[in-house]
């Protein structure tokens, strides 16, 4: 409301909002996966690197190896899924700490992204770029993919037994295990799913830019975790809704958008986002205490 009053010519316009949603679409798709992991009480720091690697691998395949677009997409998603499976297996079955495992994977996969895309792969095929650069009802496609992803996973986490189990695991892992839920297997699938969504986000980003950047997704993991926590997830697990991931990302997008419209420098943007996160977490803790 404040922004609409302060910037009536620029903020409440179709162009600004479709741009705002487009800018947060990639982060939100990754945030959906991160929300599911955080509900289960774990997280994945390698998602930003997977975004760069998936886009880079598909681009490398199409340009250097002559893969058709569909094959390149399939291979990139397969690679993303395997990265998630490696994370999930080592964390769930071998007991490696999620932070250590995904931090190490972040470095490995970033190195892989540099190997496949070098200084960036340009001139991607038309039909690949059309995936993100096309428009539906005047809005660029990544926004629709984001809305579709959020809707599908909101439905799945609300209505299906499989995804409801993540709440039980995050709430009390031991109790979930004793009640017959295959906790390790569920965690493995959680990491695979998150990595796949990061792979999809990477393909959409490369398609949108028309270039696969090895530096893409740097710092994305922290933005996504921030959005998910702002959206109601708890680092201790058991809480959160997929719609919350969208709302958290929209909130961050709004803050960023308003700061650009107000010409606030990048220095302040980081400070303001940090303060917002601390305030949100503190408010959440205070509310939890009062409820108890």
């Amino acid at each position: 409301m404040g922004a609409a009053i302060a910037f009536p010519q620029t903020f409440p316009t179709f162009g600004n909002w479709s741009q705002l949603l487009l800018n947060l679409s990639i982060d939100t798709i990754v945030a959906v996966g991160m929300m599911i992991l955080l509900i289960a009480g774990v997280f994945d720091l390698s998602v930003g690197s997977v975004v760069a690697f998936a886009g880079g691998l598909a681009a490398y395949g199409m340009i250097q190896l002559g893969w058709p677009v569909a094959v390149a997409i399939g291979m990139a998603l397969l690679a993303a899924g395997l990265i998630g499976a490696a994370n999930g297996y080592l964390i769930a079955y071998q007991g490696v700490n999620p932070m250590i495992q995904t931090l190490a994977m972040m470095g490995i996969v970033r190195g892989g992204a540099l190997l496949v895309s070098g200084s960036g792969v340009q001139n991607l095929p038309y039909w690949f770029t059309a995936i993100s650069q096309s428009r539906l009802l005047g809005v660029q496609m990544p926004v629709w993919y984001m809305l579709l992803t959020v809707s599908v996973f909101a439905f799945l986490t609300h209505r299906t037994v499989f995804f409801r189990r993540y709440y039980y695991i995050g709430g009390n892992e031991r109790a979930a295990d004793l009640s017959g839920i295959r906790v390790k297997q569920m965690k493995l699938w959680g990491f695979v799913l998150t990595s796949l969504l990061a792979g999809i986000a990477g393909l959409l980003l490369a398609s949108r830019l028309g270039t696969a950047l090895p530096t893409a997704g740097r710092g994305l993991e922290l933005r996504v975790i921030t959005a998910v926590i702002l959206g109601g997830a708890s680092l201790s697990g058991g809480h959160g809704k997929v719609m919350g991931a969208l709302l958290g990302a929209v909130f961050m997008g709004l803050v960023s958008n308003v700061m650009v419209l107000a010409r606030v420098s990048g220095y302040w943007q980081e400070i303001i986002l940090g303060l917002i996160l601390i305030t949100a977490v503190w408010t959440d803790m205070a509310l939890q205490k009062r409820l108890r």
Partner: protein
Amino acid sequence: MIKTCLILLIALLASCELPSRNTTDSFTYRATQATTALITNEEYVMVTTAVTMPMYVNHDQATFRRWGKERNVRVSILGPADWDVPAQINTIEEVIGTRPSGLLINGTDPAIGPVIDKAVAAGIPTVVYDSDIPNSRRDAFLGTDWYEIGRMQGEEMARLLGGKGKVAYMGILGLTNMETGFRGLLDVLKKYPGIEIVGKFDDKANVEEAARITADLLSAHPDLAGLCGFDSNSGPGMALAVKEARRAGTVKITTVDWEPEHLQLVRESVIQMLAGQKRELFTWYGAQFLYDRVHQTNRLSASDAQAGITNIPTSVNTGLLRITKVNVNEFINRPTQ
């Protein structure tokens, strides 16, 4: 029900708009039409990435602010705090909607080409600085040829080593401008069969990382003769490790940028040469080009749009500074502006 859904789906698909295959629309004409109108309350916006990087703050942003003051126009500096090209693109997209008088964009990566085209199509005069985005419709480019930065370092290193010895180089791997610089360096060094390249390293624009890599290199290759750096933190990092190993002066160092710490290291003979960019020039004149474009300062025809021309230079190489111990004091003692 199914019929209704099918009709809706077909209607939706019919409204789907694919991107244009041919990108040579009449952008220039529309842009010029928009900019010839009288502009009041002017605002010029600089959009970069890594907006907090000291080199950008001290050279580019300080000059841009000084220019704004001198011209009595509003200037804004926007962009992500970290090196994040997609975030820079998002910022440009959002700024386009606010219709500034002119956009001064740091050419960080060819991926920003389409959004530059979008700004031009929206009628916003757009100048690219630092590295060119040749695949875009930018009105002008001012900056440095990174291939030349690599060549200058290669030639100096070959001279310092007398054409023989082990050399390593580092920078931020994956950045288009640095990879171009690496290519320039290698193209020179390969002419010297006595020079052996022992590695290309990613120092992640981090002093500690550059120092760690250098220390490891000195252990692995005690006869390492030369180091070339390509980002602002490569030089101080390499110098730190070489000093700690008590090899200052024997291991020759060439690198980029000329922040006070770089200059001091040249004075101490730890770094032998700096390939410096004239950042103040490309920021100042880039902003001035925008101003001249907006104000049609120099009219070259009855209608530049109809003539298919612009009234500013389209490409300016601001050249390089070669800083060695011989001239370093001139840069250390330069007056503050």
